[in-house]
């Protein structure tokens, strides 16, 4: 499909949805609006609120804090996941001993941890970073573990026959293989870092997008809630575009990877 056709269709979907929303909430049918704007707001109000948030500049501080939490959660979670993934994949004993604990810890719903983290790390950014960390860590951990374990035996044997020592194998074989798997989960793990940050803010904080939404909810300001969600959605799309750019740059060797960049 042509790029512009695709773009037009995408915009079309948004216009249809917004128009339907507008008709249902703002245009009276037989003297009565089908959906009560108090509960559903209207698209124009929401967009006006988003505009106001950016125009007055109040949103920037919250965006900045959520971004900082997301980045910190992602970086710490990824580093932890890579280190532990490597250790577990290279040591069968460690992997066997800790296997049930890892599985149990991963199965735990993270929301129940949020209050504990607030007690431990306070209401500032660190309790949100900790929540995001627990989400990102396991995704990266499992992927790196898998990646290191499933290095092609032929590539490994060949590298050994070329005379590589353990350190060189790590650098030229294990590390790139693990990175591939990590990047294949990059979209998921960055998304979860953001989820951790926003959920943490929502449950108790004084700044951030999650806080903004929670604040609006507590005074039945539906327009404010929707405005927060719109900003959040835009934020996610921008982060995702950034991740895609990084991915295309780092995984240029992968079959099919450059077909997406070659078009652009």
């Amino acid at each position: 499909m042509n790029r512009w056709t695709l773009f037009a269709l995408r915009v079309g979907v948004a216009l249809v949805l917004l128009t339907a929303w507008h008709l249902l909430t703002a245009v009276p049918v037989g003297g009565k609006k089908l959906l009560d704007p108090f509960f559903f707001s209207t698209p124009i109000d929401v967009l006006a609120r988003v505009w106001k948030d950016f125009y007055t500049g109040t949103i920037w501080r919250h965006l900045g804090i959520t971004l900082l939490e997301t980045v910190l959660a992602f970086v710490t979670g990824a580093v932890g996941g890579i280190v532990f993934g490597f250790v577990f994949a290279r040591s069968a004993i460690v992997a066997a001993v800790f296997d049930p604990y890892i599985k149990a810890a991963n199965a735990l719903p993270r929301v129940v941890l949020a209050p504990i983290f607030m007690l431990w790390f306070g209401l500032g950014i660190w309790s949100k970073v900790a929540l995001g960390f627990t989400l990102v860590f396991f995704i990266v951990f499992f992927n790196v573990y898998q990646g290191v374990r499933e290095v092609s035996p032929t590539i490994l044997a060949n590298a050994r026959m070329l005379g590589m020592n353990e350190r060189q194998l790590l650098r030229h074989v294990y590390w790139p293989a693990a990175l591939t798997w990590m990047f294949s989960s990059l979209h998921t793990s960055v998304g979860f870092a953001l989820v951790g940050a926003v959920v943490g803010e929502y449950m108790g904080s004084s700044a951030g997008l999650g806080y903004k939404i929670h604040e609006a909810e507590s005074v039945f300001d539906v327009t404010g809630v929707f405005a927060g969600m719109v900003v959040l959605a835009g934020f996610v799309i921008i982060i995702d575009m950034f991740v895609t750019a990084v991915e295309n740059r780092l995984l240029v060797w992968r079959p099919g990877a450059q077909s997406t960049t070659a078009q652009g």
Partner: protein
Amino acid sequence: MGDNTSTPAAVALRAVSISFRLTDGGTYDAVAPTDLVVAPGEFVAIVGPTGCGKSTLLNVAAGLVLPSTGRTEVFGKPLAGLNGDSGYLFQQDALMPWKTAIDNVAVALEPKGVPRPAALERARAWLDRVGLRVFAERYPHMLSGGQKKRVALAQILIRDPTILLMDEPFGPLDAQTRQIMGNLLLDLWAQDRKAVLFVTHDLEEAIALADRVVVMSAGPAARIVGDYPVALERPRDIAEIRTEPRFHEIHKAIWAKLRGEVQKAYAQGEGRSA
């Protein structure tokens, strides 16, 4: 043959046997005690039916597999660990997919402590020699099967090993590419004769390339059942040599032996799968 007492053999397998432990607790004797000697500069091909353990024997020479009994000697010294004097060309893709062709070749010099700029320069020269100069910056998935084999060949030869171990290296390639690769291999080999141990199931390829063809029996407990010198002149052209009468005589003699083993292996395979 080739076992001169004055110069030690490049590779010598002495009474090497290989058994595998099966999951049900029994053992499978893949290769019965076998002696095989490759002299320095000699090109030896091993042919045998599928699954006879010829690749396993090659892996013993490489140090990738430990023999159950017997020992391996490399230039008269017992082999411990991997065979550092050898370069191993695998049947499957063994290039690092995350490195470009030139990086794959250059990285082979890192264990030798060659600084990267010098390694890159030498890698470029080697890519030139295997005819891939313009493909230096390509990743393996952007290369054809034959081109990947050329990179793999450069990756091994840049380390200047004294022994080449090759495990059906041209097996996955089409017939024409195999001939081209065979001629390239002979050209490169002629420049500084390394000892070569070349495993293949293609008898014609074996005769066209080698100084000596060794025939292995069908497994289990495979052993060497024939050892034939190939007295054909060098330099050879893989495609043309097949039309020579002398080639046909040698082929006939070896095939008489090999055929029985192939049929045996085939019958076993049928019996096993039934």
